[in-house]
């Protein structure tokens, strides 16, 4: 859980900071002259919590976590460590797959929650310092359309992204063909499949929960 979650926090926060900045500037550009500027807070909050926080964090972690799992299990496969595990009477799925999927399912929402907070925070700081917007105005906009569902919707999506990314990493890793090239191909495939799964799940949750 430390490797899949805690170690992934820096990259997730890095992405969140710049997402918040860009969203704030972009919404100001769109709203100026048409809509009151305090709607910047609403757009930053809704977008970061419901969509960009979970999806961009998921994509980043699909690269980091999915690749890491696929490379680790792929190397274990081609060096016969997986076979060794089975000869010691361990079930490969119970010992290698289930803990990783559970860890990712639990830790993705945690990392995403940090990313949401930092994304909204960076959007707020940008709005106050670079736009003609005060702190009360930003938070007025943020609270205007806020519903508790915004947060849990993002976190539920994020948990499903974690499960999918870890599962793709495990499946591709355990399916690795012999040699470094085989492990490389499995790793690449795991990342691609993880990203694809995130986009499909994103659409699925939008259809089901909105």
């Amino acid at each position, binding site marked *: 859980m430390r490797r899949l979650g805690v170690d992934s926090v820096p990259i997730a926060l890095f992405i969140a900071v710049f997402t918040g900045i860009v969203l704030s500037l972009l919404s100001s550009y769109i709203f100026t002259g048409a809509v009151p500027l305090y709607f910047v807070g609403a757009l930053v909050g809704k977008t970061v919590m419901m969509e960009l926080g979970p999806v961009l964090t998921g994509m980043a972690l699909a690269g980091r976590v999915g690749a890491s799992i696929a490379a680790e299990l792929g190397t*274990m496969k081609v*060096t016969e*460590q997986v*076979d*060794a*595990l*089975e*000869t010691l*009477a*361990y079930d490969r799925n119970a010992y290698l797959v289930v803990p990783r999927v559970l860890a990712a399912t639990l830790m993705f929402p945690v990392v995403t929650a940090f990313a949401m907070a930092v994304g909204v925070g960076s959007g707020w700081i940008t709005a106050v310092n670079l736009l003609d917007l005060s702190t009360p105005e930003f938070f007025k906009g943020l609270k205007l359309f806020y519903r508790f569902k915004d947060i849990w919707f993002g976190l539920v999506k994020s948990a499903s992204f974690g499960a999918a990314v870890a599962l793709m990493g495990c499946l591709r890793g355990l399916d690795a063909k012999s040699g470094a090239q085989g492990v490389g191909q499995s790793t690449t495939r795991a990342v691609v499949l993880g990203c694809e799964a995130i986009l499909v799940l994103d659409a699925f949750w939008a259809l089901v929960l909105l």
Partner: protein
Amino acid sequence: MIELEHLTKTFGVHRVLDGVSLEVPDGQTTVIIGYSGAGKSVTLKCIVGLLVPDHGRVIVDGAVVQDLGREELAELRGRIGYVFQFAALFDSMTVAENIALGLVKRGHDPATISQRIEESLGVVELSGTEDKYPAELSGGMRKRVGIARAIALKPRYILYDEPTSGLDPVTSAVMDQLMVRTRDLGVTGLVVTHDMRSAFCVGDRIAMLYDGRIRQVGTKAEIQATSDPVVRQFIEGRP
């Protein structure tokens, strides 16, 4: 006893095993020799259920391996130690943790596990390496840890996959001694190798796998006196 009955195994269009039949008598070491790619390792993997033969049966202690359920297969694997060609040690674990893994699965208490680790490392003359990681060991030491991991479980059978490949002559001789010592402890051995010096050193019976079948099986003396040109060429190492 391990019995192989008419095993066939095909990968893609390549039939690796084409009717392999062999008996591995208890208390002895049987060596399967053959060219690289002849299917020796595939045969071993069929015995422990890592690969499933297309046809034929693997019978261990009267039970057909392919017919076993998950629990029964796990129980069977508890009776069979497997020494992999490249040791297959878990590189994120220390030597002691590698050896302990199988013991933990079988529910042994910590005191017994420590004792077994100490005993098995003593047998392979690697006492004091408990806290080292596989990356800190030489190839020969890793293979010896692989043997220690297998014998720590006190198995009835040990399958050795190319135990001397890639080792210098002295380390190979040490490995041979270990296999003989393990047999003397009452463990039935099945070794696959193309190292004839090792085969004649450790084997009570030798079988040659050729063209997907057992070409000849017999005692050391019978194999050494063979008139079969294929077996002769192989054991003499003639081009």
